[in-house]
């Protein structure tokens, strides 16, 4: 579904992503892990089209989306969330989802005025569905900026889902969450997988990643150092050295 070939991004002299190859198949949950600064978020931003790649190619469903701007990649069916929550704080919860209605299947067969004035009936229904799915139906008229942290995370996810994507890029969706919230997120992501949405997940919370991911790719200094099932990655010597830590260092197991 998503194919990344030899993707490279230089910021000045720094090589943030270095000839990365990655394939995501339909219906999969693929996780991207690695130490801070290893190029995970840059990869997500490159796929979403926030900035152009230095070289390499990204194809999605057979279409070249390498240098497509974000609204174009969204139309192709790629939605994303941000590492640090980026909501429209002065808009209400409902309006946040209302804005995100530009995907082709919500856009076709509705006239111009309808689309810009109120959104089609189907689009409004999908807003209601996503609000209910995110457990925010009772907060619909509150300003997004006034929500609690966990609710803001859920709202951001709901907003990206309102555009009816087929691929979801999640940039550290569990950052700052407590165990219970992570568990809820785990369940939510599994439901999304059942709905047929493919997920590319960037995450540091290993409890979540190891349980949910079908495949894991590990980055270090912009290069992919390992790829495989959670078990394979956990067993990989390079990965343990670079990121997960070795069992004989007691600190990595020190969480009570």
């Amino acid at each position: 579904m998503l194919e990344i070939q030899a993707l490279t991004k230089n910021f000045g002299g720094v090589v943030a992503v270095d000839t990365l190859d990655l394939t995501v198949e339909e219906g999969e949950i693929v996780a991207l892990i690695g130490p801070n600064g290893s190029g995970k978020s840059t990869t997500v931003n490159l796929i979403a089209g926030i900035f152009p790649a230095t070289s390499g190619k990204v194809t999605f469903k057979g279409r070249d989306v390498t240098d497509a701007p974000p609204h174009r990649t969204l139309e192709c069916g790629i939605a994303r969330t941000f590492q640090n929550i980026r909501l429209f704080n002065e808009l209400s919860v409902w309006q946040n989802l209302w804005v995100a209605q530009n995907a082709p299947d919500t856009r076709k067969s509705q006239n111009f005025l309808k689309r810009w004035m109120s959104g089609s009936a189907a689009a409004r229904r999908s807003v209601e569905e996503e609000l209910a799915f995110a457990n925010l139906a009772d907060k619909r008229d509150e300003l997004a900026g006034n929500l609690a942290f966990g609710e803001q995370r859920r709202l951001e996810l709901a907003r990206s889902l309102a555009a009816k994507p087929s691929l979801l890029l999640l940039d550290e969706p569990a950052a700052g969450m407590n165990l219970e919230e992570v568990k809820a997120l785990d369940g939510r992501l599994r439901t999304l997988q059942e709905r047929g949405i493919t997920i590319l997940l960037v995450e540091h919370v290993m409890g979540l990643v190891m349980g949910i991911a079908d495949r894991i790719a590990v980055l270090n200094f912009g290069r992919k150092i390992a790829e495989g099932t959670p078990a394979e990655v956990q067993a990989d010597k390079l990965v343990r050295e670079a990121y997960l830590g070795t069992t004989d260092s007691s600190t990595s197991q020190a969480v009570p």
Partner: protein
Amino acid sequence: MQFWYGLAQLVGVHTILGLSAYVILQTGQVSMAQAGFLAIGAYVSGMLTAMSGWHIVPALLVGGVTAAVIATIVGFPALRVKGLMFVVATIAFGEAVRLFWFNFTFQVKQGAEMVGPIGGEGFKQIRYFPANGWTDLDRAIFILAVMAIVMAGVWWLDRSRAGAVLRAVGEDDLAAQSVGVNLTAIKVTAFAISGFIAGVGGALYSHYTTHIEHLNFGVVLATFAIAYPIVGGLHNVFGTLAAVIFIQGFLVEGLRFLGDWRNLLFGFLIVVAMNVSPRGFVSVYRELSTYWRRRVYGGAIFVIVLILAGEIMGGEIVAFVEGLLGDTGLEYNHMAWVAFLVVMAAWSWRGLASLTRMIPAGLRRLAAVFRQSLGYSAARRPRKVA
């Protein structure tokens, strides 16, 4: 009454100008080009009515459309930059428009006289209103009606999905892009809409002043254009109207008796207004209790009734009161003040009571604002730990 009709026309034109800036400010862009669009609308429509003999309504629309087309052309390069760079780019555009009219001379012969703009001397023969026998009241009604239509349009836009998209772009353009908003298209469209509105406002402006010149459309007017929606608040179109009445009605006209000191106080009062209501007049209104909202409505109605009564039958009232007083040595003025105070007190004795609480509270709030703006806050200063 003449004065009030003139003020109504002024408020109408400036509210339209403010609303044009309101639209583009929604997308987070501070545009200093509004005076330029106003100038385009003013000259184009003036030329159409004075030189080609058009009716005012189509001239109004063509003036607006011309400004919108130029806004679209300018918008594509200008909106590639944002923030301060956009401000600089739009100031440059506004000045370019002003200097264009400074150099633009185009006259036609109508009967014995030459009609049309003459460069630096301006455009003097926009006599549509007097030539067609419109009274001051007709003009005021016409201008306020156009203002109401524009206001309703912007209000509607504000509540539509398009309005939410504009606000989303203003809040966080990266996030807006990531949920499928085509930034360039949205920003240029907003700029074109704001250009259209300013063009219509300019058309009204040139017709009610009958004489325009390039100096009318400088940076000061552009600053006013963005000051109205910012002072009024970017959440509701009525804030812009309130700000125009506050700035044009109270600060510019109402303080005229202060002479040149007015300009000093003018700046000071704008700063105070911004500090007391950083999110605009509308937000202050929203925080008011129902009790105080009624006072705001009532106060406005009271002032309007007072003005109307004074204008329509001021002489009769004075003569009647003087006749009652006879030779008691008291004059009308004393009685008017007493009556005013009695009415105020009777009308809201509880209001006056809470006023005594509000004034010290307001002063404390102001003092706190100024302390903070100086970077001084006793409560927050970290204590030294030995």
